[in-house]
C-alpha cells in the first residue's frame, strides 16, 4: 500500500474555511495574482496619490510606457469588483488566494501570504449579518468558545469599516484577526451594481494568521519555504 502524502497546512485551512462558508451559502472563486492598478486600487476607492495607498506596500510590475500600470495584488479585494462586474448582485462568495506585500519579512510578516476575502451582497445584508456570519465562522473554525467583537476602523472600500477581534477562552484574550465592513457604495457602483438597491458586507482574513492561532505556529515564514517537515509537524486525522 502506498503511504499517503500530506497536504500543505494552508490547503487544509482553506478547505475547512470553504466548508464552513459553503454551509452558509458562499461560493468559492479565484482571481488573478497579477492585477491592474484599476482593480487593485482605483475601483476599490483607493485613488492614486492618496495617503490611504500607504496602507499597502505594493510590488509594481515593470510596464512599457503607455501600458496600464500593474501590481501583484496586495489583497483579494479586487475580486469584489471583478465578480460583481461579471455576475452582479445578489451574491455570496469567498475568494482564497495568494497576495503580495513589499515589506521586510519577520516572524509575522511575509512578502507573500494567503488571504481569504468574503463578500455578501443583497438588498438587506447588514452589519449585524457580518457579525453573525463571522461569529459562526470563528466558532466553527476555532471552537465554540470563540466570540467576536467589532471595533471601528477605516478601509477605503468599506463604510462603516471595522476590525474584528476574536476571544480565545483558553488564552483568556482577544486577538485581532481581520478587517471588514459594509461595502462602500462607490465600490458597488464601480462594479456596476445599483447601490440604491443593494448593500453588503466584505471581510478579508489572513489564512496563515488563522492557522498560526489555531495550531500554535510561531513563524509565518515556515509556510512557503517548500520544507516538507512543516507538513509533517502536525498529527493529522481525516474527518
Amino acid at each position: 500500500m502506498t503511504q499517503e502524502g500530506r497536504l500543505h497546512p494552508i490547503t487544509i485551512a482553506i478547505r475547512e474555511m470553504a466548508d464552513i462558508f459553503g454551509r452558509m451559502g458562499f461560493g468559492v472563486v479565484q482571481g488573478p495574482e497579477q492585477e491592474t492598478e484599476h482593480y487593485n486600487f482605483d475601483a476599490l476607492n483607493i485613488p492614486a496619490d492618496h495617503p490611504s495607498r500607504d496602507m499597502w506596500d505594493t510590488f509594481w510590475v515593470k510596464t512599457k510606457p503607455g501600458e496600464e500600470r500593474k501590481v501583484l495584488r496586495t489583497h483579494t479585494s479586487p475580486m469584489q469588483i471583478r465578480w460583481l462586474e461579471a455576475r452582479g448582485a445578489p451574491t455570496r462568495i469567498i475568494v482564497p488566494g495568494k497576495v503580495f506585500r513589499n515589506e521586510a519579512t519577520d516572524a509575522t510578516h511575509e512578502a507573500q501570504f494567503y488571504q481569504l476575502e468574503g463578500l455578501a451582497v443583497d438588498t438587506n445584508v447588514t452589519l449585524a449579518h457580518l457579525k453573525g456570519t463571522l461569529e459562526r465562522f470563528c466558532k466553527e473554525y476555532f471552537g465554540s468558545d470563540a466570540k467576536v467583537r467589532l471595533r471601528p476602523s477605516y478601509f477605503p472600500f468599506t463604510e462603516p469599516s471595522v476590525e474584528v477581534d476574536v476571544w480565545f477562552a483558553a488564552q483568556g484574550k482577544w486577538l485581532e484577526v481581520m478587517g471588514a465592513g459594509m461595502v462602500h457604495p462607490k465600490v458597488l457602483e464601480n462594479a456596476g451594481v445599483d447601490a440604491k438597491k443593494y448593500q453588503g458586507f466584505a471581510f478579508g482574513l489572513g489564512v496563515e494568521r488563522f492557522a498560526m492561532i489555531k495550531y500554535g505556529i510561531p513563524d509565518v515564514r515556515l509556510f512557503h519555504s517548500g520544507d516538507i517537515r512543516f507538513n509533517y509537524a502536525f498529527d493529522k486525522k481525516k474527518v
Partner: protein
Amino acid sequence: MKVSLKWLQEYFDAPLPDATTLSDALTFHAFEIEEATRTMLDVKVLPNRSADCLCHRGIASELSAILDRPLKSDPLREDVGTYDVPTSLTVEIEDEKKCLRYMGAVIRDVKVRPSPPWLREALEAVGQRSINNIVDATNYVMLNIGQPLHAFDAGKLPQKDGAYAIMVRGAREDEQMTTLSNEEFTMPEGVLLITDAHTGAGIGIAGIKGGKAAEVTVATTDLIIESANFDGTSVRRATQALKLFTDASVRFQNRPSPELCAYGMRDVIALIKELAGGELVGVADAYPTHPKESAPVSASLAKVNSVLGPSFSKEEVEDVLKRLSLSYMIVNDTFTVTPPFERTDISIPEDLIEEVGRIIGYDKIPATELPPLSGTPDQARYRGIEKVKDHLVEQGFTEISTQSFAKKGDVVLANPLDKAKPALRTNLDENMKEAMVRAKYVAPVVLPPGVKPKLFEIGTVFTKDGEHMEIKTSEPAPDLPELKDAPDYSPAQYELGAYKPFSVYPFIVRDIAFWVPAGTDVGRTMSYIREQAGELLVRVDQFDRFEKGGKVSLAFRLVFESMERTLTDSEVNGIMERVSEALKKAGFEVR
C-alpha cells in the same frame, strides 16, 4: 499621534478618567491605541480622520462624544477675528491648485528665549523637543488644533519699498535648498517652495520643512508667521520624492480644510504675544478660492438601521449627533447633518451611519446569521483543484508551497524586495528541484525507511501569455485527473494537532539490529529503545525483520536531533552504546 492626558484635560472641567479607561473609550469607539502610559496615549488616528484628529483638540472632541462630556470650549467654534492687512508683506501664489491658502503675519520686536516650563513640558510629554518660544509656539498650536505653522526670521529677508514679498512657486530645475536641519536638497522640478520674491531664494519646502535661510534664532526680532494650506497630492509627491516626512507633511497629505489656517493663525499670534511680546503689524491672507460649504448629508432612521442591522430609536441616533456636536435637523425620521468644516470625512449617508454605529458601540450590534439560500453555492472550480490534490496525496505525494519570485521571468518587478529574484516564476520546476533536494535530506525525520519523498505543487506561474495555474510533481503521477470543475466533489477534510516544532540543526541517523526470542513484543521493544535513547531521539522506525532458527532479527532506524544545537557523532555514539548495553541487559543479542 501622541497625546498628553494633561493637555487633554485642558478641554474638560471635570477630571478625566485614567489612561486605561480613556484607552478603552478610544479603542472601541474611535481609534486603536498603540501605546498607553499614565500620562500619554499614542493614538493610531485612522486615515479618514487624519484631517481633524491629528491634534489634541481632535482627540478631545472624540472623547467628548464617547464619554458624553461637553468640551469646556472648542477652539474651532470660536470667532477667528479680523486683522489689518500689512503694507509690509505681499504674498503671491503661482498655482492656486497647489497652494489653497497662504496667510502671513508680520510680528515685530519679539524676544526669542527659552519656553516657559509649562510649554516645554507639554511638548516633551508628546515626544517633541523644545527649541525656543517662537518655534515651540508654532508646534504647540499644530499639536493642539492640527494646523501646521512656520515662523521665518523676517530680519533675514530683504524688503523693497518697505515690504517683504513671499512667493509660493514650483521649484526650477535643479534648484537647491538647505533645510533647518542643515540637509541640502536638490529639488525635483515642480516641488512647491516658499520663496522670497525679491531675490528668488527658497526659504521653505511648502508643507514639509522650513529653510535654513530664514531660521529663527536668539537674535531674531521680527517674524513672518505662515499659516497655509497646500494641496495633499502635491505635498505627498514632494515628500516621497525627497524622502522627507514631517509632522506638517503628514497633516497636509490628509487634506485639512483651508479654513483651519485662520484658527491656527489666531492661536499662534496670541501665544507668541504671550511668550515673546512684540507687536502684530498685520496679516496678509491669499485665499484664492474658498471651498464650498460642507454639503448637508442625510440619512433616515430606516436607512441607519438597515445598514447596521439593529433597531436603534430616533432618540438614540439623535443623541449621537448631539454628543458629536454636529449641527442637524430632523424632518420626519430623516436626519440631515451639516458637517463642520474640519469633518472632511462626512460626505455620504454611510459616513453618518458609521458615526452612529461607533459612538453607540458595535457591541450593541446583534450577531445575526444570513438567511439561508436555496440551492448549493458554486464551488466547482475550487473543488476541481482540490480533487487533483487529493488524488496526488493518495498516491503518496506531499504538497509544497513555494515563493512566486524567481531569478528570471517574463514578468519583472519594478521594485523587488530581493534583488536576486526580481521576476515572477514562469514554471514550478526550479522551486521543485530545490524542495526535492531538501526533502531527500530531511526524509529520515519525516518518512519511514524505504519511503522516498514525492512532492507536488499547484501554483500560479506567469508567462508571456499571462498567468495560469500549473501542476508540478517530482515524478510522473499516474492517472492524474484533469484540472476541471468538479461541483460535486467533496475535498478531504483533516483535523490537525498542535504544531510540533522541528529543529533547524542537522539530525543524525543510526541503525541497530538484534536478535530477540520469538514472540517478543515489537511495540514494547521500540518503547524500550525510546526510553533508553532519551529526548534527543526524534524518530524510530522498524525497517527489517526476519526469523532464523527460532530467533527473530529486528532492525530499527533511529533519528537524533536537538532543538538547540548541532549534535556530534561521538555524543550520538554514546547514546547508541547505552541503547546497545540496555538491549543486551534485556537479553537480546545485538548484531
